[in-house]
């Protein structure tokens, strides 16, 4: 009798230990899973903000430098680092070859600040119009930089420069 009781007791204690161990292991696995999910979410969060910072940094630099690029720069009269050639831009606007040229940019636009005009420029309305849009996407944050917008003006028989700005936008990371 004593032996049988002992065996019964020992058996249930062993089962209890196995169950305990299983629960502990499941708890460890769940904990490990939660920690992994937490780690991955933090990592992706920092990656997301890192990518966004990188893009913003790139756009800031590009806005500052855009006026000096071959397509934008005004070189017909005296050298001017922040002068944009409006004549070139209106002619470039309809060039399909430049589609996709400005990578990672969702908005690229040149607008006149003073004197104010209205409407988007076309070959018909130019130069009595307000802006030339080269890239127009959606979902962007925009950044601006003030520049001089220069063109040849037949009425005065020379160069006319007006106040304007380059507006550039980039897509946010979602």
């Amino acid at each position, binding site marked *: 009798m004593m032996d049988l009781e002992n065996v019964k007791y020992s058996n249930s204690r*062993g089962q209890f230990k196995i169950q305990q161990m299983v629960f502990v292991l499941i708890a460890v696995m769940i904990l490990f899973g939660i920690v992994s999910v937490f780690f991955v979410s933090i990592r992706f969060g920092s990656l997301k903000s890192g990518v966004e910072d990188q893009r913003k940094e790139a756009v800031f630099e590009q806005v500052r430098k855009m006026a000096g690029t071959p397509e934008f720069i005004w070189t017909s009269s005296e050298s001017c680092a922040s002068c944009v050639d409006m004549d070139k831009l209106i002619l470039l606007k309809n060039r399909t070859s430049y589609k996709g040229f400005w990578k990672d940019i969702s908005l690229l636009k040149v607008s006149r600040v003073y004197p104010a005009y209205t409407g988007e420029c076309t070959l018909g309305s130019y130069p009595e119009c307000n802006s030339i849009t080269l890239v127009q996407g959606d979902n962007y944050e925009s950044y601006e930089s003030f520049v001089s917008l220069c063109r040849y003006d*037949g009425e005065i028989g020379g160069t006319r420069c007006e106040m304007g700005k380059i507006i550039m936008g980039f897509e946010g990371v979602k």
Partner: protein
Amino acid sequence: MNRKGLDFSFTWIFAIIAGAVILFSAIYITTQLIGSAEIERDSFVSAELSNILSPVETNLEDNKYSLIKFNLDTRVYNECSNSGVFGKQEISTASKSSGGWSDQSVSKSSFNRYIFSRGIEETNNKKMHILTNPLDMPFKMGDVMILHGGKYCFVNPSDNVEDIFTDLSSNGAQDIGVNISSRVDSCPKNYTTVCFNANGCDIKVITRDGEGTVSKYGRELIYYGDALQLAAIFSDPEVYECQIKRLAKRAGELGVIYKNKALYVEGSGCSNNLVSDLQSFVLATNVTGSRDFGRIAQIAKSLEEKNDGLGKCKIF
């Protein structure tokens, strides 16, 4: 006693097996995360390098020098492609850690950048030198960006080239990775030697009136102007030829815009006779390599002379 022993060992065997599974899973996942973290870090370096190259671009200035310091020894992979309207520039990186060189990162591409370097350019003491020269032929085509790890020795360069390096190094106060020497044997060991109009160096430059050839790795690269001369010295022949073709494509597109501008300005009462020359220029930009660049240079020279004489009606 026996039963108790069996009970104890079963529990332990169960725990050891389950523990081993957990441990090996953890090690595997961690290894995977470290691997992807390395690629992620290198991809960030490529993106950062690409961003750094924006302020390095020139506006109206002649030449520019920039030094990039990396956190680790880094390899920059320079890949150039001619496909498409403007071709494509791709850069990626790999870094050296205790486990050796990491895998090549995700590349960052651009259509308006022209990086001249070896196919795989390695940092020297974690530093990379960047020389930027605008290419005006006759109008600004783009920036020639030269990326190099240093350790170059120029033997008797032309006055122009010597002046460029003297200016950029602030009269030698700053190390820009290039030593100027009057004799080959005065060059430090392990340096790539570059001889101008002489033999006995790793790279030989033949120069006459701002144009000539650069001979390296058994190949001859043709250049026009100081910017392309330096580009040919520091680049692998494949990279140089590819970037030349890309620059010519950009020049062609710009040529069309300037031709249309010449027509437009003529319509506004400002006569110029540049339309046909610009048309010839555009046709000449269809090049197969640096050898054909001479035709562009020749038309560019004549265009520049004509344009300079236009006064208020200048097109570029």
